[in-house]
């Protein structure tokens, strides 16, 4: 009996040691980001909508349990003329401006390519394209808020964003907001559209890149592990 108790204690001790060792292990440098849907190398008709789902685990937290909010996930769908080309699978780092966009409350009212509570970034990029001083105007709208530029509703001020961040977001919207080759989708799940900027060839498709945009631990990197790039060929 006494032996059994000792044995149990040893098991408990061993478990505690293992747990302690696990706790002491250095954290992974970057997040684990996996696109669970659609499947890699899948096919989808042009103009169709597909569904996507992304899981992110980072610093012991997971999107699965809402420890990482859905708003910390961004999906980029980029048109590629040849999905079989190795370059198509190359992940590209996400612009800091887009990280700031998802970390502020921009996405509560704006979407990238469609209207919501406010105009889409594509519509803003199109309206201000080529206008002198547009970057400064948009940056001021972001920082200080604006009213009457698009309708009767007002854009709130964003004192949480630095002047440099606001300027970078404005620059990104002007340069890339209306880019017909890339569409962005905020959130850990949703739909994406098979849209090509021009008539697609038989090997053309979309490459989907998923990103974690949430806060990083000290010394952490955004370079993610996992299946965070998948290719969908158009049909």
């Amino acid at each position: 009996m006494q032996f059994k108790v000792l044995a149990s204690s040893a098991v408990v001790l061993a478990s505690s040691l293992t747990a302690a060792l696990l706790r002491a292990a250095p954290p992974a440098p970057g997040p684990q980001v996996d696109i669970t849907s659609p499947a890699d190398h899948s096919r989808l008709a042009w103009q169709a909508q597909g569904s996507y789902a992304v899981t992110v685990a980072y610093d012991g937290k997971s999107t699965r349990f809402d420890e990482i909010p859905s708003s910390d996930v961004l999906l980029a769908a980029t048109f590629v003329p040849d999905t079989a080309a190795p370059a198509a699978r190359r992940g590209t780092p996400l612009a800091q401006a887009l990280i700031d966009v998802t970390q502020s409350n921009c996405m509560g009212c704006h979407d990238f390519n469609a209207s919501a509570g406010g105009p889409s970034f594509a519509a803003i990029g199109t309206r201000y394209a080529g206008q002198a001083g547009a970057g400064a105007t948009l940056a001021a709208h972001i920082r200080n808020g604006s009213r009457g530029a698009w309708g009767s509703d007002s854009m709130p001020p964003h004192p949480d964003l630095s002047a440099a961040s606001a300027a970078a977001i404005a620059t990104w919207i002007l340069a890339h907001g209306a880019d017909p080759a890339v569409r962005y989708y905020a959130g850990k799940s949703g739909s994406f559209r098979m849209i090509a900027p021009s008539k697609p060839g038989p090997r053309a498709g979309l490459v989907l890149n998923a990103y974690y945009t949430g806060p990083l631990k000290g010394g952490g990197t955004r370079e993610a592990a996992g299946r965070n790039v998948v290719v969908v060929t158009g049909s």
Partner: protein
Amino acid sequence: MERRTFLKTVAAGLGASMIGTEAIAQTSPGSRSAKKVIVAGAGITGLCCAYELMQHGIDVTVLEASGRYGGHVYTGRDGLSDGLFADYGADHLTRPGYEQFFRYVDAFGLKAVPYPNAEGSPLPANGGQMTMIGGKFYNEKMLADPATQRALGFNDREIAFLARHPWYELPDLFLADHLVRFRDAHQPFGNGLDDLDAIDLDTLYARQGASQRARDYLGGQHVNALYGVWRFAVMRDRGIPLSEGETFHLEGGNEEMPKAFAARLGARVKLAHPITAIEHDATGVTVSYTAYGREEPQTMRADYLVNCISLPVFRRIPVTPALSPAKQYIVDNLTYSSHPFFVFEAETKFWLDDGFPTLAMSFEHPDISQIWVVPETARSSRVVLKAFGPAGASPQRVLAAFRELYPGKRDTIVQALTWDWSKDPFAPTCEMEPFAPGTLKQFWPEIMKPDGRLYFAGTYADALSRGMESCVRSAARVAQEIADA
């Protein structure tokens, strides 16, 4: 959308309700329709539509992504004392203008409580309204003085009109000759005014001789002029005054209405069951969804689906085959308003000590534009105030702006709260914004139409969008269309 910027109106003659014939579903197998319908979303539109379908004897299931029903109709109690509460979403009802809604109020035994000055709506004469213009407060007597009006910049014609009419009737001065040309509430086109689709309402006011002061008051920039004039025409047709009528809210909070629908629908409402995909064909609809906390998708087949999810959220759900280009345009381009209410709890009616009969004030400050008093919602000497401020602002910032502007000696506010709809993943938007110039032809009448077996209801899917009334009207209309199909 604030009242001063764009007055609301309502569509005529839609959606014969089954209400009153059977307040609680009692469907017998013999009378049941063979039809099965999935309603997407358990906001007030989805619940009302499901209720009406149930009354038609149709087998209905409501799939709601959130863990609560009601959507943008939300009555909050947290943080307030003595059982006081405040509506953070849909704020009030009007009479006239909420005829369909009041049928449900009566049938469910709910009670509407007078709520004057709701969202800054006009008070009766000498009600104590204070308006800030150019940094100075004006009371009603001052605003009715022709010398004041002239100093503010109104022209002779406007001053003569304002001698006989309140300010909120100014649209009549400029648009009366246009309004009489509409003959059918559902037909904005073909009345000799189609060219107004290209300009905004502000431009039309200017064309009709409005002074800059009148234009500033009336708003209308970026509002499709044909849409704006059409709204006023229907409003007149329905007997809704430009004051918007008397304002009310429901005893217990406006969420009493979603609760009443949900109670009658029972297990037909599936909470925390987000729809993940919709497939449709000539014979029906297959919906994929997940149950709360479970990842494996399930499917449900039905004859029809009614989308009652706001369109920016709906478009996250893949639809196969894709919607028609005309319907997709609407899903991608309809713009919504979404503004928070800021709720203050005060220990006393402090404004009485300062000689103000009520606290009904509008401001020009970027952090606060309006404040008004909510009628007593619980037995308490404390009082709830509501204010308009910008989305994303903290309640303390809005309160600080109020304290900077309040012309009395002191206030007794002890609590400041808000509900940030922009962070709500399921019901982030309120009503649709007016259509932009040049777009009415793309939206109307497509916005009302089904796409195959997919029907659409919501505040936008009605002849005119006007709060919860257009939600229940569109819901009843779609239920009737499916029952008749």
